[in-house]
């Protein structure tokens, strides 16, 4: 995005005045990331499709109340997170249990021999995807969405200390999984 193009905040200002073109532009800028975030939250592309659309309709409706205290991308991810959780509750789907973390290292559905044939990057990707939702989400938000500790706290509605704790355990589990798969790693 060039400096000459309007900032996200300026576009939200236009949306607040009823400018539909501005909301379409924000959609073009942010939809892919919001959609991917919701897919990773819900595990359902169909659900993510509906929710991502709803996020931008919510932007249209709520723009006059946007105070600009956070980045627009953080605001959108926060709305997406709320809607994803609401949809999951409605469908009575369970979150991935923390106990699933053990499976990352145990490799119950991924025999070690298979892991050894993978390159490290592919193994790492599989381990990240297999992290418990609350851990994978902070990994996604930091590494893919470029969010700061405080922004992740805002999106997830948790204290910054909890963000750091989740990041610590997420990376620790990844390290343990890599070690179990035969990849040397200095930490943990």
């Amino acid at each position, binding site marked *: 995005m060039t400096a000459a193009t309007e900032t996200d905040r300026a576009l939200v200002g236009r949306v607040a005045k009823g400018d539909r073109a501005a909301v379409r532009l924000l959609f073009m800028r942010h939809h892919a990331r919001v959609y991917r975030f919701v897919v990773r939250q819900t595990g359902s592309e169909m659900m993510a499709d509906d929710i991502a659309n709803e996020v931008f309709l919510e932007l249209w409706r709520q723009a006059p109340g946007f105070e600009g205290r956070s980045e627009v991308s953080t605001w959108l991810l926060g709305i997406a997170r709320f809607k994803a959780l609401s949809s999951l509750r409605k469908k009575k789907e369970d979150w991935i249990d923390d106990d699933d973390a053990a499976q990352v290292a145990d490799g119950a559905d991924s025999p070690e021999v298979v892991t050894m044939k993978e390159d490290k990057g592919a193994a790492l990707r599989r381990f990240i995807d297999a992290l418990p939702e609350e851990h994978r989400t902070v990994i996604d938000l930091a590494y893919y969405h470029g969010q700061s500790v405080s922004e992740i706290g805002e999106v997830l509605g948790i204290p910054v200390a909890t963000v750091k704790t989740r990041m*610590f355990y997420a990376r620790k589990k990844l390290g343990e999984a890599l070690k179990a798969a035969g990849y040397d790693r200095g930490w943990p």
Partner: protein
Amino acid sequence: MSAAEKMSRRDEMETLLPFYLNGSLEGAELEAVEEWLATDPAALAALGEAEAEFSSTAASNEAIRPPADALSRFARALDAEAGPVRAPAASSWLTQAWGRFTAVPAGVAWAAAAALLALVVVQAFEQPGGIDSDFEIAGQQGDLAKMPFALVTFKPDAKMADIVAFLGEHQLKIAAGPTAEGVFRLGIPAATAADYEKVLGLIAAQPFAEAVVEGRKPVDGG
């Protein structure tokens, strides 16, 4: 420093590394990580591990492909939403034509007007003695599919003469469009990323440009 304290510091640094990599770390935490990277031999290996996680996370996310028709479906849903009505501004012939579309839903009107815009551009080139420029429509020359491009929408009160003159002056080409939402794909004959950015800035600065989104840009590390 005891082993326990050292481990605790290592844990803290490992926790902060993702935020160091995404550029969001600041203040004392940033200084602490930089000092650690500069003084602990294990730190650079740790940074490499975090970079691998960074790449793998990006790959996992980008493997998820959003639906191709998401924008058009969103535009239809947006049309159904209440909100202030945008008023056409200028009193050009295009505006008068635009006015004939305002009786239909906003999205349909916009799409129709965008199609009208494209039609007029084409007609301008078919007229004898018409606009003499390097401006081209997709399919007339070259491999537009490989050309750097940007996505652009025009304001409903945009004047055709202004748009055509600008496109011709900068050798821009309509590679595709308009979509149902009035989005044009403009081919940009830029050899470097800097040239591309410059043209994007020029487009965005034009009074007829409503929205400009970066598409494919030249890869030159610039």
